[in-house]
């Protein structure tokens, strides 16, 4: 056994809380409560990342998703009638539900197939006190600089598009 009992215990604890919050997130009628359960799921994912020594990814997970969900939260509060359960908060129609279920099944099948594959090797353990950002920034800004810049341009296009849509007056 590579990891001790405590590690296993917390791994499964965060895993179970994460999955349970995700299920609660999709079943809540109240959009505000749903958003909060989503935050909880993201938090558990961040905890798991940190347990796997991917501390940077864990911090960014909280930073990005917590902020993003806050915006969702605001839209819910401002647009969906102060979070009272409403028609807009619920997916209507059997067709949509069946499609979502099928998509979910496909994802589960994909996961099972992936779990049977040989996984790529882990990053080597870093000695204590080394710079945590280097293993991420080195490939990101040297090896994959072009894809990174293309992604940023894509995001910029999305921002400009959002501003154009918001500024257009009927």
């Amino acid at each position, binding site marked *: 056994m590579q990891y001790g009992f405590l590690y296993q215990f917390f791994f499964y604890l965060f895993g179970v809380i994460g999955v349970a919050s995700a299920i609660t997130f999709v079943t809540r009628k109240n959009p505000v409560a749903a958003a909060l359960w989503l935050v909880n799921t993201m938090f558990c994912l961040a905890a798991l990342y940190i347990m796997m020594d991917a501390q940077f990814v864990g911090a960014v997970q909280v930073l990005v998703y917590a902020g993003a969900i806050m915006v969702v939260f605001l839209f819910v509060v*401002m647009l969906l009638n102060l979070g009272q359960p409403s028609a807009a908060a619920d997916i209507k129609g059997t067709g949509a539900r069946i499609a979502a279920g099928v998509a979910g099944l496909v994802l589960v099948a994909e996961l099972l197939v992936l779990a049977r594959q040989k996984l790529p090797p882990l990053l080597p353990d870093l000695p204590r006190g080394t710079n945590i950002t280097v293993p991420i920034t080195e490939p990101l800004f040297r090896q994959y600089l072009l894809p990174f810049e293309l992604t940023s341009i894509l995001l910029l296009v999305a921002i400009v598009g959002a501003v154009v849509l918001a500024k257009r007056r009927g």
Partner: protein
Amino acid sequence: MTLDAALLLLQHAYDPQEPVHGAPWLWFTIIKILVVFTVLMVTIAYLTLAERKISAWIQDRHGPNRVGPWGLFQPLADGLKNIMKEETYPDAAYGPMFILAPVLSFIPALITFAVIPFAAPLPTRWGLVDMSIADLPIGFLYILAIASLGVYGIVIAGWSSNNKYALLGGLRSSAQMISYEVSMGIAVVSVLLLSGNVSLSAIVRQQVLSGWNAFPLLIGFFLFLVAAFAETNRLPFDLPEAESELIAGYHTEYSSMKFSMFFISEYSNMVTASALLSTLFFGGWAVPFWTTANTAPWAGWKTLVTLVFFALKTSFFLFLYMWIRWTLPRFRYDQLMSVGWKVMLPLGLGYLVVMAAAVLSLDAAGISPVARWAGVVPIYWAILGALNIVLAVLVFFILDRGRIVSPAYGRLDADEIARLQAMSERPITPAQGD
């Protein structure tokens, strides 16, 4: 051997003291958590007294002076009062979240302090003990991540109270914190450029070697200071609880200890922000002009001296918070938003580009960050500082009052008035003299 080479040797190579590990590490961590938490809570209690005393001093009054000598037991009396008071639950509030909200704002406020190094490492017979609860390698990112959660408590408090003033306070707070978080992050990137690491202990070490960041990153410091005031919801950015507009904003419906928890988290955020300001820009626990105290080999007295200096620096920023609170009036909401998005963000981005270019060219010119002119003045530090003074003069010249942010008397152009007129029922007339 030059001084900086010797310093580097002292800092990195000549460090015979091994960090503590194993069971003693666990015990030391538990002790540190208990001590830091206790000190933080007591500090917060006395900060409420300090705030009232300073406000009294600024307004030429006496302030609280009845409970104990010079009013020193006032925080105890206040705490007792808050615990004994009746708690009210509004009928229309959304129960579980109404109770969850103070907790959600209390916990992030307290745990952010965990990564701040508050003194030089302490050597013990079990090894070297870091004087921060957890010297996380992600340091500053952890603080940004946890600080971004603090807003949830405020927004949920505002929403679950089911009170329109509380909701307005919550919405204001979320918009404000999201806007200023961006500027805060960008302001800190300039610090990370110099330190090359996100860990706070590495940032302190870099400042010991190459001079405090406040001078070579003057504008970055200024941006961070403003963003820190906005993030802690203190005047002039206290719109979420603006008494004159929103009663008490997001905590209107809270009473007794729940109200007190919001209060504690506000002060705790202040302490963390002050500690961060001193860590990122004023050398953290480093003692000015005294290299021996700041470098290895570590000793007990060095821990003590550096702890005192850290406390002094943090207290200065806490005082600055209060000083500004009792001096400046509150921003108007549109001013707040335009300062955030139209001034701070472009300024931060432009500054980042300039600083990155400056650091790159200094590195290309082969100037070492630790090289000192005549053994005293760090050259790198002085060049960046001179650049920053030029930039600061330019920035303050351009940001002259009323040119970018609409001034307090509200000069509006004609189509803006027409747009507002279309929104409201009664006609708006421009103020006299415009």
